[in-house]
């Protein structure tokens, strides 16, 4: 590798070493990839730099330096068909080995991100899992305390789900859980969040002013047509933030207590009472 004056150009090797050290300290994989591209552009004063990665789960992924939106009339010509790797304008011919190594680092970073994503989501329903939901819950509590916004934590427990499993088997039970997940995903309003936080327990983060709003929302979550062969109802427990609690643990405790009381009172409180129509 040589610079313009024939003197060996160490910039590629130096950048690669820096990036190797940065990978583990980066806040996320996508931030690391953005940093790689930005530093490539800065180091060689490039017009453009992209990286195309092929993740085992996400498939082809294209990243733009600066994380900038693509201008539709300036989309990088043929960038995906050039295959995986880093593509620059102008082309850095002499640094091909270093660019290839940096692209491998980006692959690792994206894989780490994807594993992180999977750690926050429920693979069966695609909803957040407890950990992913709690991140949003904690952020909502902070906003509620700071700005005085109210929201509700709702715990939903499917009624008699064990009997469903016994009746139609675990595969059928999984189908019911997927269907409930779809109902929640499609039925919630913008900004509301759903999660599967236990075997047959779901949680909702609803931006509501008080308990009076919840029944209408849960009514709207009645299932989509088609699916499984069991009649599913649910029982709900609600806790309001900040009026009733303003910590994650306290909100769960309040909502869980309400859910417990509703279950034992045999209440449909508020409760999904219609069977999902099955074919």
């Amino acid at each position: 590798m040589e610079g313009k004056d024939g003197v060996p150009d160490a910039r590629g090797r130096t950048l690669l070493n820096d990036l190797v050290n940065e990978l583990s300290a980066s806040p996320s994989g996508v931030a690391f990839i953005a940093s790689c591209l930005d530093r490539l552009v800065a180091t060689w004063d490039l017009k453009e730099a992209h990286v195309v990665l092929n993740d085992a789960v996400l498939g082809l992924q294209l990243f733009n330096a600066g994380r900038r939106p693509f201008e539709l009339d300036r989309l990088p010509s043929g960038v995906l068909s050039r295959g995986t790797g880093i593509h620059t304008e102008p082309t850095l011919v002499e640094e091909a080995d270093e660019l290839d190594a940096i692209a491998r680092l980006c692959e690792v970073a994206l894989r780490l991100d994807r594993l992180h994503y999977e750690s926050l989501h429920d693979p069966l329903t695609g909803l957040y899992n407890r950990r992913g939901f709690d991140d949003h819950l904690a952020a909502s509590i902070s906003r509620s305390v700071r700005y005085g916004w109210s929201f509700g934590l709702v715990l939903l427990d499917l009624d008699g789900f064990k009997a469903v499993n016994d009746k139609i088997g675990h595969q059928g039970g999984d189908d019911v859980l997927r269907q409930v997940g779809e109902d929640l995903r499609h039925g919630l309003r913008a900004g509301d969040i759903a999660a599967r936080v236990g075997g047959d327990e779901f949680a909702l983060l609803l931006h509501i002013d008080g308990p009076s709003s919840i029944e209408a929302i849960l009514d709207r979550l009645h299932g989509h047509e088609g699916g499984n062969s069991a009649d599913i109802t649910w029982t709900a427990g609600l806790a309001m933030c900040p009026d009733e609690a303003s910590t994650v643990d306290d909100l769960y405790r309040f909502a869980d207590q309400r859910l417990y009381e509703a279950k034992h009172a045999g209440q449909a409180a508020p409760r999904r009472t219609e069977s999902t129509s099955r074919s």
Partner: protein
Amino acid sequence: MTTDLDRLELELRCVPGVVAVGLDRDSDGEGLLVQAVVLASVAPQDLRARIRRVVDANVREPVSLEIVVDALSSQHPA
């Protein structure tokens, strides 16, 4: 109010069909532009709704959402 841009970008890229994400701030720094570049051939039918839900779940500030469909499809390798 801040948005976790890393999380937003990752969750968008996990929507099937999304191959690129662009993020930018308005010149006054008050709003966020979110661009999702999509290959329709591998996208689910409810792609737009899925993208919208990801944005709504992660962004608590004024946001403009731009979904670019198939602008790269002719360049997709066989």
